[in-house]
């Protein structure tokens, strides 16, 4: 079997992998931001909720998170009379991964926000900015820059975790590889998985390169 045929077959699963990655990261960030905001409201009940959420996710294998989403969500929705058994599988994949990664992103955002120098906020107020602009112009950009290395690691972790959606029968790059290796009755299996690994590596190297470029652009901003 030709290497090029393997690559083409595996790349057929790339769109599924990428849409899963982008959508999950988007919703995970949304969850992370809103949880961080709740946490920082200093409301004891809300921050306890955020703590429990983080504690549960920390101890949950991503695979299990996906399975619970796939098998559990239909049951939960059935309780309120909504049938979601026919919804696209990618929906359950996105929910499982976003809930998992949202907790880690929440932690990254919150710790970054708390480590912004308090003097920066005071300086913003002292030149007459209102609280909203002080947040948008000064606190938020600095929070984001501080959180960047963690965000990069989490995004790379998410790339790798997308391979787990095979458990719900989604056809991503990884599933294409297992299908191909089964079709060939055990020949070239090693080659298939090495090529698959190289493809994932390439995606990760690309992400690392993008973050490096971004970081270089802001190299003089020392926070």
């Amino acid at each position, binding site marked *: 079997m030709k290497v090029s045929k393997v690559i083409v077959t595996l790349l057929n699963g790339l769109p599924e992998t990428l849409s899963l990655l982008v959508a999950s990261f988007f919703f995970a960030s949304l969850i992370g931001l809103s949880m961080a905001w709740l946490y920082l409201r200093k409301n004891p009940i809300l921050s306890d909720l955020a703590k429990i959420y983080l504690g549960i996710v920390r101890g949950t294998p991503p695979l299990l998170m996906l399975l619970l989403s796939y098998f559990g969500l239909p049951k939960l929705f059935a309780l309120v009379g909504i049938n979601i058994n026919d919804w696209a599988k990618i929906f359950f994949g996105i929910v499982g991964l976003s809930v998992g990664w949202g907790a880690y992103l929440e932690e990254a955002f919150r710790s970054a926000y708390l480590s912004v*120098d308090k*003097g*920066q906020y*005071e*300086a*913003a*107020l*002292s*030149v*007459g*900015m*209102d609280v909203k*602009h002080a947040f948008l*112009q*000064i606190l938020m*950009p*600095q929070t984001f*820059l501080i959180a960047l290395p963690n965000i990069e690691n989490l995004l790379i972790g998410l790339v790798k975790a997308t391979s787990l959606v095979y458990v719900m029968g989604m056809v991503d790059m990884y599933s294409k590889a297992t299908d191909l290796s089964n079709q060939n009755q055990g020949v070239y299996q090693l080659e298939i998985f090495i090529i698959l690994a190289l493809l994932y590596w390439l995606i990760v190297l690309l992400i690392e390169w993008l973050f490096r470029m971004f970081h270089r652009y*802001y190299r*003089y*901003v*020392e*926070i």
Partner: protein
Amino acid sequence: MLLEIKNLKKKFVNNTVLKGIDLSINAGEVVVIIGPSGSGKTTLLRNINFLEQADSGKMTFKNKRLNLANLSNEEILWVRRHTAMVFQNYNLFKNKTAIENISEGLIFGQNKSKKVALQLAKKSLDSVGLLDKQDFYPAQLSGGQQQRIGIVRATVLNPDIVLFDEPTSALDPELVGTVLYDMKHLADQGQTMIVVTHQMSFARNVASRVVFFADGEIIETGTPSEVFDHPKNKRTKQFLSAIAEDY
């Protein structure tokens, strides 16, 4: 009278930092506050632009009467937009270039257009000879340069009062002079200033009035010559003789 503070009190947990301060400043005056570390000088300054909130007291600023224990957000913003502050650690916005640091307050505090703000910022940066640094981030500047830009950031807003919180304390000795020079230049132009500092020579030469502060109270106030050469209070004398070698 530009600013008048009456009976300002402030407590941290169970530690009284300000024990009923009365202070008034006329337009054009340079008031220098001296005193031992931890006596509450900085806290007093931070209570004037409400970076900290007093427990009680009254303030009259530009003929507007304010109850310090009960301020509305509009009042807080109004005072901050008519004052400016220079910080001990400069606190230049780390994610903004030198020129953006200066234009930021004009845009978001005074609703000037970005174009006008940048023009003004450029002009004021030029006036202190730092125009070549306009696109540098704070991390690329020396402490002295950062603090001089910090002063420009404050004065470009055309504030009624500039509050200086130990502006030279974090600087290397050889950089102190340039910053003090800019401050003296500002005073000569008639800028109203309240300065908390340990630079006694600055207090002696530039101040129109010196306030000696200790243990959360104003102990003595007068012209530089009155306070430095003929201190009336025992604690003022003690403080001055303890730091005698410094000035």
